[in-house]
């Protein structure tokens, strides 16, 4: 018995050795802030949080290395994240918005400057994703991942493989279509079908787009974000426009799922790490950003979240070779769809966006039965009131007569 135990122990030690041996670069850089707390606000499913399959639980590793406690909170879309930062009340030290939202937050003076040269691991950020239009001087953001929006479909539920966004308006799949639940991504699809720019500010173009979304509504099963995992993996829905990384995760669970970049063109995006003005621990936030750029950590994240990575250290890593070949993540020239980035829009257009989005969301079917129902209830109420009144009067009359 003792021998077996001993063997087990040795095995355990041997197994954990390589893990503890995989040191991070510049470990001394991370020292000195033990006991601090940082609040990280990130998209759902956008960080590695497991030790399975050779990946690392990123937040735990960071806590182990630095002694800083990580409070990790998630959001479902840029639009959900924005009001929480804008209206204060909560203090976050790291946020990971997408390009157009970073542009907006820079415009509205909501982000702290980041001195990229002071980050030892900044050298791993690919040249391709430096000096992007949303942050030309790399002064506010550090790229985290890159992705495109495509059409996810269930091969067993569609009659032919879709190649166009118009499949989402196909009546054969009524009740089996899901739509992405945030205005920019939802508007992007009709915009591409109609050949408009994703950054159009033309009122007529926007109302055409809204009209198309209203026409689509009767065919929809629902508007969803992270819930698509449940709906697509179980075969509850046949198609949904969504981000490529999430497709790669879902395909592991349900191999029937297919993916296509529709011919009309798609949205490409960069999510990047930023430090909002409400931060209470700027130094610790810098450590976190630098840690996320470490090739070991970035590799875990890239493998886990399934998006393309702007990290050169990962792209050259042997463990990443298989992913590097993935045609959805890194399409060849001939497979590359037509892509367009979102830009921030002027205030009036943003206002119009949210008004149209409201209108789309409250658009409902015929309500006559409700009016009839209320009329009937109203009649019943009046009837009983009158009846009550008559009984009361009768009773009074009866009391008075004796």
């Amino acid at each position, binding site marked *: 018995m003792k021998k077996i135990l001993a063997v087990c122990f040795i095995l355990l030690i041997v197994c954990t050795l390589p893990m503890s041996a995989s040191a991070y670069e510049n470990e001394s850089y991370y020292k000195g802030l033990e006991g601090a707390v940082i609040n990280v606000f990130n998209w759902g499913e956008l960080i590695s949080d497991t030790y399975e399959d050779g990946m690392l639980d990123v937040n735990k590793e960071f806590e182990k290395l630095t002694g800083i406690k990580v409070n990790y909170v998630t959001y479902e879309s840029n639009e959900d994240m924005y*009001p929480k930062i804008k*209206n204060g009340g909560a203090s976050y030290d790291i946020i990971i918005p997408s390009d157009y939202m970073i542009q907006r937050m820079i415009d509205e003076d909501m982000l702290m400057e980041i001195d990229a040269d002071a980050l030892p691991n900044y050298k791993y950020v690919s040249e391709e994703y430096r000096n992007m239009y949303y942050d030309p001087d790399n002064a506010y953001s550090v790229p985290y991942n890159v992705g495109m929006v495509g059409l996810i479909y269930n091969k067993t539920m569609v009659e032919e493989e879709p190649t166009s966004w118009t499949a989402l308006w196909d009546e054969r799949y009524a009740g089996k279509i899901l739509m992405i639940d945030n205005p920019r991504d939802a508007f992007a699809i009709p915009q591409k079908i109609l050949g408009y720019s994703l950054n159009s500010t033309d009122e007529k173009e926007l109302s055409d787009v809204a009209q198309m979304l209203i026409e689509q509504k009767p065919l929809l099963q629902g508007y969803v974000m992270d819930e698509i995992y449940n709906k697509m993996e179980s075969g509850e829905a046949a198609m949904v426009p969504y981000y490529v990384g999430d497709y790669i995760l879902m395909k592991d669970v349900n191999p029937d799922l297919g993916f296509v970049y529709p011919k009309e063109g798609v949205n490409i995006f960069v999510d990047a790490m930023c430090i909002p003005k409400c931060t209470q621990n700027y130094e610790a936030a810098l450590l976190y950003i630098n840690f996320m750029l470490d090739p070991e950590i970035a590799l875990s994240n890239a493998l886990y979240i399934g998006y393309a990575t702007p990290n050169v250290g990962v792209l050259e890593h042997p463990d990443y070779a298989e992913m590097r070949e993935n045609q959805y993540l890194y399409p060849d020239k001939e497979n590359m769809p037509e892509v367009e980035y979102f830009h921030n829009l002027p205030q009036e257009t943003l206002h119009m966006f949210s008004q149209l989005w409201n209108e789309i969301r409250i658009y409902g079917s015929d309500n006559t039965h409700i009016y009839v129902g209320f009329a009937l209830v109203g009649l019943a109420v009046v009837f009983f009131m009158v009846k009550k009144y008559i*009984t009361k009067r009768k009773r009074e009359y009866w009391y008075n007569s004796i």
Partner: protein
Amino acid sequence: MKKRSLGEKLVASPYIVWAAMFIIVPLIFVAYYSLTDANGNFTLEYIADIGRYKDVMLNSIWLGFIATVISLFLAYPLAYIMARSKANTQRTMMMLVMLPMWMNLLIRTYSMMILMQDTGVINSVLTALNLPNLHMINTQGAVVFGMVYNYIPYMILPLYNIMSKMDHSLIEAAEDLGGNKVTVFKDIILPLSMPGIASGFTMVFVPSVSTFYISKKLGGNTFSLIGDVIEMQFKSSNNYNLGAALSMVLMVLIIICMMVMNRFTGDDDDGGVLI
């Protein structure tokens, strides 16, 4: 009115502070936001804007009303039977009513969704038995079902409470005086249980009308209730003013509904009133 002693005031103060901080102050904020624009200037624009949300609002009130009536018809006999049974049975039944409430509402609703999906548990069982599948999820019926399922304990409890305190000798007297079962129910039991019906009605109707999670999960978000629209203003549209204005109007509408309801259960003695 009798003047309260210092001791009474002290005992009441924790709740008064609580209510002031978490009920009165937030209400003032809601009122403030609903009457100002994003820059804090006074405006009636948002209140005037609610005409566009009329259909959503009516739909919410209607579905909430249906759910409340269904809960009432399900809960009333149950509460009566509970109040009439032996003490032991009463305790067990009470347990069973309360049991689902040990779980969080969100979890219960989410599991409802998984049960009712087209590929969900119920349909898998039907398929296994070679029976035709039912389409349940993403319909108004599913939303009403969710409301009834989640809120029915709030209907049962006040009804049970009032019925277990009901003076049984009144019923016996009515029977002795030759009243048949219908008369006894109509003239004795129903009027005596009216306060229970009224509080049950309020406790189910108000959360049903303003719910957003249930309609989101079981209604699939393709038709919105007013709760969804309000949630959206705060969560993603960053339009607190419109959200607050909608909440204000909804509150007023609910108060009107409650006032109509109270006409039936008010002070006087009269019986024989069915909702």
